[in-house]
């Protein structure tokens, strides 16, 4: 382990991150909400800490090793969540405890979207904006952003990139150079955000709300500036815009890249992962709408379809926006939606969950085992489209699947142990591990009422989910630290 270079990069990343406290400061100035002090302090503390870390080791020149990448990424997400919590902690408008501030910050960065605020509409604009911006930064990954703007990382950038990007196949690059790939991803991300903001504005939101919601939509985050989330606007147009952009952001960003570069929609059509995603969503939609109308949950068919589809897309992509809410739906429907969030969006998207590709590969492998029962001598290979998936990847996926379920169960049991009822515990564990946001029962609206211990457990689960388990778990193994 080369702690010096790890510290150096951590320092530089903090210096860069400190800049993200400046935009909320501008928002504070524009709306004159009198909440600028926390951002000034947070900016100075972050910048100063970054400089302190960086200065003594600034001359160290060394390539980041494979292993150091994990440490940098995990440290950075933890440290960032801590420094990101400063504005919440320091503001006098909302006296949050340390636990609450950290939870909120982690929930933002990991694009979970579960909040501890109970009266969002009364918060100063700068705080509201800052929460949305945290989600936006966490969506594509702040480390990927750093890779894009720091050419000095060299091959080390690849190690960081690999430790942060979601999906089972992390070695594929969009362009030969990692900084170029990271830049391409951020340009697409930025472009989508701008489009989304314009669409929201046209759908009738205020400019402030449009920008804020664009941030959390494209990041598949789920934070809103209102207690009633998207329901506040009570507009079919707004919900439609949200659904379209959630579906776009849940696709693999390399598809957007290829489509943009080749000026064609063929990459989307040829992608089997997205096809599988649509298929599953379609099947669940049928079931959902059928149940909702048979049970006569909503009086009008139009409302049934609108509410049903909106919540389906919002939960399945792990965004976590709500309109009229889904926790009160009858029977197993709320559980069905929460279970759907385990699949999440596609690999290489901003969505959480286990990623569609892994579920798809598990499905294909299962199918293969059945074929093998019928034809014991068959030679079979697992394919996605025309691409053969190596045994190695399949194994990783299987292990990931089991580990994910284990982490889920352990989190839920830990939550019960600290005093949550079991529906809250199991739904909150899923909502945080999948970076979804809203759960059931006590956590259907927000996370304000649960105790501190539960909040720390959930914050850990969020990071576990965002870094796809192994990047974080590897730090808890002996092999990692032994030389």
């Amino acid at each position, binding site marked *: 382990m080369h702690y010096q270079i790890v510290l150096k990069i951590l320092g530089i990343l903090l210096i860069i991150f400190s800049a993200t406290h400046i935009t909320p400061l501008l928002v504070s100035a524009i709306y004159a909400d009198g909440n600028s002090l926390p951002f000034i302090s947070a900016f100075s503390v972050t910048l100063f800490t970054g400089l302190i870390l960086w200065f003594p080791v600034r001359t160290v020149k060394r390539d980041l090793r*494979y292993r150091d990448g994990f440490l940098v990424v995990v440290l950075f997400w933890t440290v960032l969540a801590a420094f990101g919590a400063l504005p919440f902690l320091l503001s006098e408008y909302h006296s949050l405890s340390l636990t609450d501030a950290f939870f909120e910050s982690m929930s933002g960065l990991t694009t979970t979207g579960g909040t501890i605020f109970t009266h969002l509409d009364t918060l100063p604009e700068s705080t509201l904006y800052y929460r949305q911006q945290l989600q936006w930064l966490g969506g594509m990954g702040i480390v990927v952003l750093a890779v894009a703007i720091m050419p000095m990382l*060299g*091959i080390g*950038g*690849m190690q960081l990139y690999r430790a942060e990007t979601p999906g089972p196949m992390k*070695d594929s*690059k969009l*362009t*030969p*150079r*990692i*900084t*170029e790939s990271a830049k391409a991803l951020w340009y697409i991300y930025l472009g989508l955000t701008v489009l989304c903001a314009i669409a929201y504005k046209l759908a009738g939101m205020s400019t402030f709300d449009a920008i804020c919601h664009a941030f959390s939509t494209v990041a598949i985050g789920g934070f809103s500036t209102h207690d009633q989330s998207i329901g506040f606007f009570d507009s079919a147009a707004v919900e439609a815009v949200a659904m379209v952009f959630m579906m776009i952001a849940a696709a693999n960003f390399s598809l957007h890249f290829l489509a943009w570069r080749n000026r064609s929609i063929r990459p989307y059509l040829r992608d089997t992962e997205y096809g599988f995603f649509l298929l599953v969503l379609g099947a669940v939609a049928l079931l959902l709408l059928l149940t909702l109308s048979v049970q006569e949950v909503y009086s009008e068919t139009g409302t049934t379809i609108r509410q049903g589809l909106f919540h389906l897309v919002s939960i399945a992509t792990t965004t976590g926006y709500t309109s009229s809410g889904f926790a009160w739906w009858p029977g197993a429907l709320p559980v069905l939606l929460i279970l759907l969030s385990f699949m999440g969006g596609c690999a290489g998207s901003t969505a959480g969950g286990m990623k569609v590709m892994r579920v798809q590969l598990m499905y294909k492998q299962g199918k293969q085992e059945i074929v093998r029962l019928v034809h014991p001598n068959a030679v079979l290979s697992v394919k996605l489209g025309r691409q053969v998936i190596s045994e190695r990847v399949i194994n990783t996926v299987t292990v990931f699947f089991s580990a994910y379920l284990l982490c889920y169960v352990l989190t839920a049991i830990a939550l019960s142990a600290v005093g949550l009822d079991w529906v809250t515990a199991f739904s909150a564990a899923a909502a945080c591990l999948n970076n979804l946001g809203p759960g059931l029962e006590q956590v259907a609206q927000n996370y304000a009422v649960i105790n501190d211990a539960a909040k720390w457990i959930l914050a850990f689960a969020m990071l576990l989910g965002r870094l796809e388990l192994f990047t974080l778990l590897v730090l808890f193994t002996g092999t990692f630290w032994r030389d």
Partner: protein
Amino acid sequence: MKILILGASQVGISIAEVLVGEENDVTVVDIDRRPLQQLQNRLDIRTVAGHAGYPSVLRAAGAEDASLILAVTNNDEVNMVACQTAETIFGTPTKIARIRSKEYLKNPELFGADAGFYIDVVISPEVIVKDHITRLIEFPGALQVLDFADGQVQLVGVKAVAGGALIGCQLEVLGAHMPGVQTRVAAIYRDGEVITPVSETVIKEGDEVFFVAARKHIRKVMQAMRGKSDKTKRIFIAGGGNIGLNLARGLERQGYSVKLLELNPERAEKIADLVDNTVVLNGNAADAGLLLQENIEGADVFCSVTEKDEINILSAKLAKQLGAKRVMALVNRPAYVEHIEHHDINVIISPRVATIGSVLAHIRRGDVVAVHSLRRGRAEAIEAIAHGDEHSSKVIGKGVRDIPFPRGTGIGAIVRNDEVIIPSKETVIEAEDHVIIFMEDKSCISNVESLFQVDVTFI
């Protein structure tokens, strides 16, 4: 620049290493997935596994917008087909292929713009290495001999030895010691540190001096650096591969007395059929008894060019111990070249350093016709042509001292209409001059390149 390297061979990998360091977008294609995986973990490149000649593979590797394709797989035919595919389907501007087989090399009409395979440049590392060694043997005492302007100008690295007339001399009075000989010292390496030469610099014993001179003057300068003029007559070559065999054939034609050692009896017999005066010996290069019996202490040069680095290093050391005057070893592995000290081996020949120049010449911006790597790739010497006129060029019409060269960079020589000029500070660059530039640190290459780019706004 977007560059496609086909084949993760020795040459391919080392070229990728150099090019990645120079901010190029590099994609490496190989049929075998495993070396690619390792390469991608180490270098910031993209890799694609597949047959390098197949259009689908090339397309996946980004051939559509690549500006250069470098086919260096171990298979000549694949390289040729890959270049043809790149030209026909993707219209890649520059295509370089490695061709090893003599059969193909003997017929250059196979590779051309109007017929045959569309290959812009054929490189043959074995031939390059062979020529490299031949030049080193031609100039006894030279550490490196590099050709510019078709060999009219050479850059030679030499170790200053006590007794040389120039030892203890300031550089400004060099001319006085060698009337009629014009030379320019490009760099001096003392105890591994580079010294940028100024007119007061004094040459000391043990310095590695790199100087530029017209080919006809090289011998005189070397003599002045080394005192005695050591004649080379008897040469031992260990290893009868392509390099060893061609080296022997070339040298025997120039009148040297050559002995060639080859371990494999069948190969030894085949070599014996192909050479005229060379004595082919069947035996181990590290067999002290055999070497002594063949009078190794009388050898002027012992050159070890087998396929194995370890054997080359050890047999060269052994030959030196047994009394050979100068020993050279071919070492492929960069780690062996950089991290092991070789006190008793006079010259380490690194094929990658020797070969890379012929590729770099096509990657450099501006009209750069020759590039040579020095000091294991840290320094570089280039030959660039000044195009344009006083308005569009940043160098034409300017005196040498007025050109804003980066530190540690200087003009070694100018070739104007086949005439070699060793420039003074007042010399003015004219259009179409071939300018030979030495850079102590390769990282300033882009500054130098931009000096020689014609400003398009003026055309």
